[in-house]
């Protein structure tokens, strides 16, 4: 039989009974579309996770002094710059007691922080940044009737006495801290940081306890760039670092109709590099701008769009921060959501010194971010830094947070996600495959009689198989392609529900290949079986 005539017949079989072709294809269409979507959604999820950590520097360690900048009305806890750009721990947030903020909550006068809100009923209602004046002066030994539910360590009032009577033993760390000796306090602090429990709420509580127990001795300092220089010079295992802080301030200008409050970050010139920020236009704040306290700024992508419409429009424009005029030196590339805290997309960056001079003054609560040379040994860097800082500030407690542990958790969850995705894909392939298989099997089985006729009039087995193979292949291919179109159609719908969909050629290829293979195999098999029968048997098949 001529190939052309064979193809003509195949074409006719496919096109003549359109309804049947469509019905047969539906299983394949749905199967292929499902495969594409599952892969795309899985990939989207993976990329989401990857994106959140893309500007996170693995070796970054954030050092901050809890409670510094306590007078600042705008910045509750200015631990900006967390993780070299990850900005965790509510670096930008306004110091309310969001559960993400380690140890946030009402601020105590001596820098002590209360455990996270809620457990201490009357305190949780304290206004943000509000002060509880008399804590430190509380008469020793006197019960504080309003705080019977104080977590960890039990009775508040006794805490100040702990150094003397050592009664408080509910929490080992707390007891240790409560001896009031900075050394042991520091040890406790280290172990706290090193165990990386990741339980922020818990940490917050412990921080709170610490602060309370040491409230009489803790000295609050404001970290400066001099401290950064000292750390970097101090051979702690970090040769790179930056210092930054965040605050909130009103901005006017551009398309803004009224003054609006935005997050302002005071950073050094190397901040962009340490935080893996990339510029869309212009350049990042220079060393010179910092030294000269120039009033220039770099805008996050969202801010630029909000205030000026676009990055290009923003570039070179001016705006007013706290009623002072600033020039926009550059706009950042959109960085997307970050692992925690607020994204750089929503921040205005100004030179560190400029902000100190005009915005925060004495109330800055800067965070020093150092980049460990050896990502594997962040704990030794933390220990060394702790010792070094203790020489300068023997009575001050510093908080250390490292990005590595977070990233570990992230990559672990990423692995789980990948496994989940593979499992899902396997299931979809099996389910889709069974669908295609059934449809193909039944539709070819139905034609056993036709195969009998073809055999009876002398059609060779080879030609019969070729015809059915081509038909199954064509229907599967059409189904596969329609399935892809279907997935393209569904994509906006899925995206509408805020699910990230990453369509990929690989997914299309896999779906098409799978649809065609399954269709051909399960279309071929019954045809093969029928073509093996003697004509009478095929003809008498129902």
């Amino acid at each position: 039989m001529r190939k052309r005539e064979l193809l003509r017949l195949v074409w006719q079989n496919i096109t003549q009974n359109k309804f049947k072709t469509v019905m047969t294809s539906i299983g394949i269409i749905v199967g292929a579309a499902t495969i594409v979507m599952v892969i795309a959604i899985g990939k989207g999820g993976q990329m989401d996770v990857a994106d959140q950590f893309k500007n996170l520097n693995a070796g970054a360690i954030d050092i901050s002094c809890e409670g510094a900048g306590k007078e600042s009305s705008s910045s509750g806890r200015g631990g900006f710059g967390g993780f070299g750009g990850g900005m965790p721990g509510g670096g930008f947030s306004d110091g309310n007691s969001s559960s993400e903020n380690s140890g946030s909550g009402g601020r105590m006068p001596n820098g002590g922080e209360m455990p996270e809100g809620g457990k201490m009923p009357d305190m949780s209602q304290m206004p943000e940044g509000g002060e509880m004046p008399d804590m430190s002066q509380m008469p020793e030994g006197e019960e504080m009737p309003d705080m019977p539910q104080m977590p960890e360590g039990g009775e508040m009032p006794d805490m100040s006495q702990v150094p003397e009577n050592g009664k408080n033993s509910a929490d080992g760390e707390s007891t240790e801290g409560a001896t009031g000796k900075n050394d042991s306090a520091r040890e406790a602090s280290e172990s706290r940081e090193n165990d990386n429990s990741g339980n922020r709420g818990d940490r917050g509580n412990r921080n709170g306890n610490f602060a309370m127990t040491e409230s009489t001795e803790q000295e609050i300092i404001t970290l400066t760039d001099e401290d950064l220089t000292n750390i970097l010079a101090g051979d702690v295992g970090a040769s790179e670092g930056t210092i930054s802080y965040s605050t909130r301030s009103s901005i006017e200008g551009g398309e803004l109709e009224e003054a609006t409050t935005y997050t302002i970050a005071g950073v050094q010139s190397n901040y962009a590099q340490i935080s893996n920020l990339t510029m869309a236009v212009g350049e990042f704040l220079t060393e010179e701008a910092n030294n000269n306290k120039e009033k220039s700024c770099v805008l996050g992508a969202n801010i630029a769009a909000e205030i000026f419409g676009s990055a290009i429009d923003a570039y070179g424009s001016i705006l007013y921060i706290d009623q002072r005029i600033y020039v926009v030196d550059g706009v950042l590339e959109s960085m997307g959501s970050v692992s925690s805290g607020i994204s750089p997309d929503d921040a205005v960056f100004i030179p560190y010194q400029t902000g100190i001079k005009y915005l925060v003054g004495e109330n800055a609560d800067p965070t020093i971010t150092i980049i460990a040379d050896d990502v594997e040994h962040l704990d030794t860097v933390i220990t060394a830094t702790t010792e070094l800082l203790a020489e300068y500030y023997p009575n001050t407690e510093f908080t250390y947070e490292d990005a590595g542990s977070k990233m570990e958790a992230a990559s672990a969850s990423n692995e789980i996600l990948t496994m989940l995705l593979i499992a899902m894909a396997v299931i979809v392939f099996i389910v889709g495959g069974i669908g295609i298989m059934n449809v193909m099997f039944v539709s070819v089985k139905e034609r056993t009689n036709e195969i009998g006729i073809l055999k009876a009039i002398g059609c060779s087995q080879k030609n019969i198989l070729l015809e059915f193979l081509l038909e199954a292949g064509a229907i599967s291919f059409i189904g596969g392609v329609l399935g892809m179109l279907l997935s393209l159609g569904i994509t906006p719908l899925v995206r509408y529900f805020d699910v990230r969909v990453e369509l990929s050629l690989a997914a299309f290829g896999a779906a098409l290949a799978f649809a065609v293979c399954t269709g051909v195999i399960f279309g071929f098999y019954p045809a093969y079986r029928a073509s093996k029968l003697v004509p009478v048997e095929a003809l008498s098949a129902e």
Partner: protein
Amino acid sequence: MGIIELSNINKYYYMGENALHVLKDVSLTVEKGDYLAILGPSGSGKSTLMNIIGCMDVSDGGEYYLDGESVHNAKEEELTRIRNEKIGFIFQKYHLIPTYNVLQNIVMPLLMRGLTLKEAHEHSMEIIHMLGLSDRIEHKPSELSGGQQQRVAIARALVGEPAILLADEPTGALDKNSGIEVLKLFQRLNDMGNTIVMITHDLGVAEHAKRIVKIVDGELTIQEK
């Protein structure tokens, strides 16, 4: 040597433990240009015999030569070729391909031989005309009457100019007039030199043939005329 030489053909159907002996040592010779009717009651094994003659089924022992070629030990490819070139088979139930139109059904055996659709069409024009199907070639089998479908099946059987024409109850599903039409056609085809073997359970139909053999319970008995 006849165009069909059957000797000691046996056929069994196996139903679990029991073997049903349907054809019992059947021997038959059909000469070229013969017009033979095989007459027998229902269930006597007529169709079974016809299927073996038409290479649609295989026997369990015995020898069969068709137009000089041995069929009983032929391979599948040879059987395919024999079916295509030597045999024109008209089924009791027509067995047309429902998705193809009349023309396509008729030219199928020619396409198998490697002719193009155009060549096959030209080649089959005469037969289509002879069977009065010229104005029906675009129709699907489902759009035709039983008699018309039977004529399409006959055209398909004839188009390849086979050595023998085999018809299993060609009039069985037709009304009287259509049946007479078909028998007239067979007569004409035989007059033109075609060898015809026809099955029937109706003596009236069998009498149109040159020769009648009877089959009862799988045994060929009397050879008449």
